C-alpha cells in the first residue's frame, strides 16, 4: 500500500488554532466573560481607585497581566475540560493528529484571544483614564516577550490542572480559586509592598506576579517607579527566569497528567 506522508505537526497545529478561534468567537459567553471582563474591571475599579496618571499606568499593566492569565490559565483549562466532556479529545485521539498539534492550536487560541483582550483593555485605559502607551521599541519588545512567555507558561499550567477537574462545572472552581487568590498575592489589586512578608513570598512563587511586574516595567511613566516593586527594581531577568521555569514545570506536568478522556485507562 502507498504510504503518503501525513501532514506536519505545525501546520496541523495552526489549522487547529484557526478552527479553535472560529469556535471561540462564535460563543457569545467567551466574548463577554473572557475578552471583556478585564476591561470591565478596569473601568469599574479604575473609576474608584485611579486618582492620578501614574496609578492608571500601573493598574492597566497589572490588569493586562491578570487578563492574560484569565484567558490562558482559566480559559484554556476550561476549554480542555470542555473538549474532554463533549468528545472533541476522544475524536481527535482517534485521528492521526499528534497531541502537540492540539496544544499548538490551544496556544494560538489563547494568544489571539489574550491579544484581543489586552487591546480592549488598553483602549479603555486610553479613552477613560488617559493611559499613555509606551513609545520606545524596547518597551514593546519587553511587552512581547513577557506576553508570550506568560501565555505559554500559564497555558501549560492550565492544561495540567484541567486534568484534576472532572467536569466543566467543577473546573470553574478548580481553576478560578487559585487565580483569584493569586490576584491578591501578586500585586494586581493590592500593591505587593502592602502585603505581609509571607504572602508576598507566596505570591512570588507563581507566574502572575512576574507577568504583572514585567508589564508594569513597560507601562510605568518612568523607571523611577520601580522603587514601588517589592524588590525595588523591575527584575526583568528574574521575570524571564521564573516564567521559563514555570514553562518547564508546565510541560512536565502536562506530559504526566494529561488525560484524553474522563474514563480512560
Amino acid at each position, binding site marked *: 500500500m*502507498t*504510504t*503518503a*506522508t*501525513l*501532514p506536519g505537526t505545525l501546520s*496541523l497545529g495552526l*489549522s487547529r488554532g484557526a*478552527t479553535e478561534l*472560529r*469556535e471561540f468567537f*462564535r*460563543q457569545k459567553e467567551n466574548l463577554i466573560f473572557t475578552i471583556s471582563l478585564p476591561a470591565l474591571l478596569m473601568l469599574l475599579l479604575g473609576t474608584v481607585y485611579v486618582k492620578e496618571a501614574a496609578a492608571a499606568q500601573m493598574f492597566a499593566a497589572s490588569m493586562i497581566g491578570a487578563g492574560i492569565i484569565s484567558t490562558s490559565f482559566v480559559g484554556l483549562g476550561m476549554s480542555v475540560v470542555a*473538549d474532554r466532556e*463533549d*468528545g*472533541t479529545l*476522544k*475524536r481527535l*485521539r*482517534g*485521528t*492521526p*493528529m*499528534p497531541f502537540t498539534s492540539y496544544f499548538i492550536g490551544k496556544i494560538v487560541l489563547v494568544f489571539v484571544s489574550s491579544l484581543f483582550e489586552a487591546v480592549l483593555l488598553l483602549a479603555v485605559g486610553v479613552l477613560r483614564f488617559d493611559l499613555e502607551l509606551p513609545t520606545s521599541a524596547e518597551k514593546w519588545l519587553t511587552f512581547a516577550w513577557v506576553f508570550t512567555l506568560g501565555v505559554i507558561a500559564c497555558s501549560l499550567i492550565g492544561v495540567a490542572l484541567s486534568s484534576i477537574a472532572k467536569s466543566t462545572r467543577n473546573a470553574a472552581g478548580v481553576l478560578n480559586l487559585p487565580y483569584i487568590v493569586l490576584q491578591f498575592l501578586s500585586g494586581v489589586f493590592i500593591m505587593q509592598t502592602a502585603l505581609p512578608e509571607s504572602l508576598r513570598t507566596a505570591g512570588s512563587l507563581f507566574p502572575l506576579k512576574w507577568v504583572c511586574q514585567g508589564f508594569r516595567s513597560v507601562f510605568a511613566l518612568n523607571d523611577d517607579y520601580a522603587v514601588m516593586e517589592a524588590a525595588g527594581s523591575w527584575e526583568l531577568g528574574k521575570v524571564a527566569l521564573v516564567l521559563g521555569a514555570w514553562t518547564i514545570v508546565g510541560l512536565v506536568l502536562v506530559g504526566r497528567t494529561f488525560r*484524553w*478522556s474522563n474514563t*480512560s*485507562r
Partner: protein
Amino acid sequence: MNAIRVRGLKKAYKDHQAVAGVDLDVARGEVFAVLGPNGAGKTTSVEILEGHRDRDAGEVSVLGADPAKAGREWRAKLGIVLQSATDAANLTVREAVHHYAKYYADPRDPEEVIDLVGLTEKAKSRGGTLSGGQRRRLDVALGIIGRPELMFLDEPTTGFDPEARRQFWSLIKRLAAEGTTILLTTHYLDEAEALADRVAVLAGGRVVAEGTPQTLGGRAHADATVRWLSDRGHQEIRTAEPTKTIAELSRHGELAELTVTRPSLEDVYLELIA
C-alpha cells in the same frame, strides 16, 4: 491476515471484571457485529481495540499492530464513529468535515462525504443545531473522511427513528461494499441481522456465542415449532423434522393456521445472555 485478532483479552475496573477473556477474529472486508446487553463489556473491548484504553492482559492485533503502541500511521487507517459526542457544536457541518480532512494524507473529498452521509442540505448548519440522527451522520462523515480500512461503530443507531436507521444501514452497506472492514456494537438484533456477516454475543465479559446471524447459537439446527389450529384448539409440536411432521398431520385434511417457526435471532440471543 485478519483485520482484528484478539486472544485472552482482559480488563478490570477496581473489583469489576469488565472483560474476562475475549477471543475475536475479524477478517478483512468483513462486517462484524458485537451484540450484548449493557455492561457486557462491548464498549470496553472496542475502546481497547481503538487504542483508547489500556488492557490488563491478552494479545491484540488491529491491522497488524498493537493498539497500545501503534502510532499516527496506524490511526490514519482507522475510522472511529463516536457514540455520544457533542463536539464541533459551533462549527458548520462543512467546516468540521473540511477540517478533519486535513489530518489525513489521502482523505476523501469532503463535499462527497457530506453528500454520502446525506447532510448536503445541512452543510451550513452548526453541529449544535443538528437532530440526533443528523448528528450521528456527521460523526460517520468524520469517521470516514480519512478513507479508513477499518471502521468502529459503537451503537451507531441508538435513538434513531426507524427511517433514519434504514438510511444509516444503507450507508454502512455501501461502505462495506467498498471493502471497508467494519466492527459494530449494537443491542439491536435486527441491525446485526441486516448488516453483519458474522456476530459475536458478549455477556459478562465473555464471548458466549459466535457465528453468522443465521446460525448463531445453533439456530439453523434448532428444533422447529409447528403450530396449527384443530377443533381442540391451538396445537403445537417441537420437532427436528417439520416437513415429515406436517406430512403426517396433513393426511387428515387441511391444517388451519399452519406455521413452522425456528427460534428467531432474538430468541437465541435472549437464551444466550440469560
